[in-house]
């Protein structure tokens, strides 16, 4: 018996990438042991999207579609998942190492008295045991943990590490509706959900940063950066000079004496690329640099170097984003 339960995560009617990562990984593991992969989808108004999971190797898809599951309510989610675990007796429960996944995993671990290996980066069956690798001491070391055989384990995996394995579609996947289980004593009332405003997110948390440099010329032009950041769902960053000039707040400062960031996209507008700044953003996945000076040091780092005036280019980019935004809106 090597059944694996995978908790999926979704947002705005689409599954998060990590759901596919975990499912395909579970599929790979289950194949070595001839086990089943069971995906769990909890939410409200989600029934029509669950089929997609079969494409990543789920044998059974447990769906609880209920208004009470609209937002993450720790007690209801725990009770529902607990009941399912009771019924299916899996040997492994995989959860994403996200805010929800980590919280739920910890709760299950306590109530079920199961071991929990949090924030793992690798996982495999080692005979009938589970073996995981996880970073410790702030990533300086990796520890390998092997579970005691026969014990059900909870494992949370860091999103984006293992990647989505080539899909192994399962045409025989069955859809199993499950009931919401309510906790015996309700202690938490989830009253609503306030989406984060990208402007208020910490710079280290956003995927896109549009950063302002002295090359923008004057304080008013910072509004262009703000606008583009807003359209891209990102945040505004700044160089020290811009902060010293009072154009932007100190908490937006990126670099040696500011924040170190690693967003997926970094747009540097009018930034020359002094080491004190680049040291704080050089590990960004994609760097787009806009600067009038062809010899600007930032171009040595950039994936896309745009040798032009940011003040002239930004309105064009903003227009483009607006147009695309409209067409997306029209489609939906």
């Amino acid at each position, binding site marked *: 018996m090597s059944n694996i339960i995978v908790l999926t995560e979704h947002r705005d009617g689409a599954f998060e990438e990590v759901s596919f990562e975990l499912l395909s990984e579970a599929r790979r593991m289950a194949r070595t042991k001839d086990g089943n992969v069971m995906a769990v989808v909890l939410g409200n108004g989600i029934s029509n999207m669950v089929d997609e999971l079969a494409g990543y190797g789920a044998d059974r898809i447990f769906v609880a579609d209920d208004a009470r599951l609209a937002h993450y309510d720790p007690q209801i989610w725990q009770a529902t998942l607990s009941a399912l675990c009771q019924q299916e007796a899996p040997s492994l429960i995989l959860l994403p190492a996200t805010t929800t996944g980590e919280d739920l995993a910890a709760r299950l671990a306590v109530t079920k008295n199961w071991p929990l290996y949090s924030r793992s980066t690798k996982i495999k069956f080692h005979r009938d045991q589970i073996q995981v690798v996880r970073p410790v001491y702030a990533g300086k070391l990796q520890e390998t943990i092997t579970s005691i055989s026969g014990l059900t384990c909870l494992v949370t995996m860091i999103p984006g590490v293992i990647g989505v394995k080539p899909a192994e579609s399962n045409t025989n996947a069955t859809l199993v509706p499950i009931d919401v289980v309510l906790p015996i004593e309700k202690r938490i009332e989830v009253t609503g959900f306030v989406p984060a405003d990208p402007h208020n997110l910490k710079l280290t948390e956003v995927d896109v940063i549009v950063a302002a440099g002295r090359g923008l010329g004057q304080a008013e032009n910072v509004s262009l950066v703000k606008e583009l950041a807003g359209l891209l769902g990102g945040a505004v960053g700044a160089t020290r000079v811009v902060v010293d000039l009072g154009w932007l707040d100190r908490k937006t400062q990126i670099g040696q004496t*500011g924040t170190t960031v690693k967003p997926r996209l970094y747009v540097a507008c009018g930034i020359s690329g002094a080491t004190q700044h680049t040291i704080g953003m050089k590990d960004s996945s994609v760097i787009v640099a806009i600067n009038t000076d062809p010899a600007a040091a930032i171009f040595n780092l950039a994936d896309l170097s745009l040798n032009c005036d940011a003040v002239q280019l930004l309105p064009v980019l903003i227009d483009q984003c607006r147009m695309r935004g409209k067409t997306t809106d029209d489609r939906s």
Partner: protein
Amino acid sequence: MDSAGREILGNIPAAHQVYFFIITWLSLAVFSAGILVRARLWFQGRTSPFLPTGQITAHTFVEHLRVFIIQTFVQPRLHTSTTGLAHVAIFWGFFVLFVGTNLVFLDHATPLSLLSGFFYLLFSLSLDLFGILMIVGLWIAAHRRFSDRGKVDYVPGYGPGLTLLAFIGVTGFLLEGSRMSLLGSQWFDFSPVGAVFATGFDYIIPDEAEKVSWHRRIWWLHVLLTFSFIAYLPFGRLLHAVTAPMHILAANRKPSGVLSTPYHLEDIESGSVTRAAPRVAADLHWTQLLSFDACTECGRCDDACPSLAVGSPLSPKNTVSELRQLLHQGKSFIQNRPLEEIVTSEAAWSCTTCGACTHACPVSIRPMDLLVESRRAILTSNRIEPGIKKTLNNLQETGNPFGFDPQSRLAWAADLPVDIQPTVLDPGIQCELLLWVGCWGSFDERGQKVTRALVTLLARAGVDYAVLGPEERCTGDSARRLGEEGLFQQMVISNIERFNQHGIRKIITACPHCLNSLGTEYREFGADLEVMHHSEFISTLFNEGSLQTDSSKTAETHERKITFHDPCYLGRHNGIFDAPRQVLSSLPGSSMVEMEASREKSRCCGAGGSNAWFDLGHGRGMNATRYQQAAATRAEVIATGCPFCLSMMEEAASGADETSTITVKDLAELVEERTHPFVVPGDNNR
């Protein structure tokens, strides 16, 4: 003239003389007890080695004595203001009267006959003149306090002592006048002030018997005032008359850029030292505890502090004052109250270790050192800002504060023409002259340009030198100034080992921070290096004629004005002021213009003391302030000789008025522009 002199204790009946001696000994006993109580507190501090400078050699003894004489008797740091000059007057008046009174005592109580003949006349005239000097000084001080009330910040607590002193001075003259009126003297010319008072006396009290009783009354008044003063001295603010000279004599005389060594790593490893960082005031050196009592709160440190000037929560004066208050709270507080409760972390991290406070202090206190001591204490508690943590991690792991791959240390040389390429030392190869590139020069985009300019110059002058390349590591300067003494010493040990492997004795560097640590701080760890700043080296190249200026490019253009910003670690801390000026003024088509605050008075750019690596949100704008001072000279070029200053000033320049055309350059770049190019065979691009 041989008969000149006077009777001591004339007109004072024998019974009165007995009371007089009882009072003398009583007041001296109170004075001594007061000083002993204070001394017991000072000696709660570390006493080994007895002097902070360590072993007392003939050389250090002379140095201590020299500074003692200058700072105590000449007081050059007070000459800049009227108040300071008033202090010099009060001091000299008080000092001469004090010595004079002691001579009277010696003359009377010992077989020595000092006060006779010419010496008596000199004594008499000096006491009169210096007595007037003291009263004038006190008058200026009183005038400042009372007429400028509300406008000036005067330090409370000095009133009683100074008032007593004024009364002693005035009653002294009254006494002299009454004595001269009573006993008469043929040497009136040598007691001019006394003579005036004597004439007054003759006029008011012509009766001889009255004169006798008035003389006794005034004598007693003067005696009682004087002995009250002596007894009061250890308990009031004028205690500094004792503690300041004591501290100046015993104080740390290491160069201001050399921080104290709280322990040696090998002593920690062998277990003979267990406390790695100061936690309480008792962990400081006893001279530092004495310095708290030597502080007069004159505020010269605060006036000099560039961080305070831009609104940082740092006041060197308050730092010392608060420590003095702690001292007054007594032994258990000195031994138990955590240092960081007094020298707060906000204050400690706001310090740029520019040393302006240390250089401004008239009584040799080193507030900067106290702030670093507090950093050491804070660091062990691990409550530190992420930027600081990151920097320390980077130093530990990559050997540079930025966190760059040490293998990329030669990236600056990648595009250099073959003839300019530096020789990189292979393991075991000996080296006469090392170019220490430093972390900024190796990794920072801007610093790399300076390094390229410098090696171009070295090639032009045909200098035979080498670089360590990927072997080079930070000197540890940042670690030490962040309070991480252990990491600093680890880096020192491995660097010295590397120098020894290559037989390195002579180093040039473009970074004053590296210059300071390699040249001065490394000595204590057994390094014997001759470290030169590139300005000094270029200056010798010019003098030797191996580097020649090229005026061809400047013929038609107008003469440009250059102002030099003195980096703290080059100027104030290491006394190198002239070499960069010599180099810059010898450049064709250029003239030098000085900022108002230059040389010793130069203001910090804001990046020192490792402030380049973290930001607590206050104390920003030091670079902008300095930039404004430079711009006020109307210079077209701001030259400097430090990568920290260069980056800070350049940043200030880019943040300033956009129409400004001021450029910021390292002096090596300016020299490179205006010296005869090195002809590279077959290189047509040049």
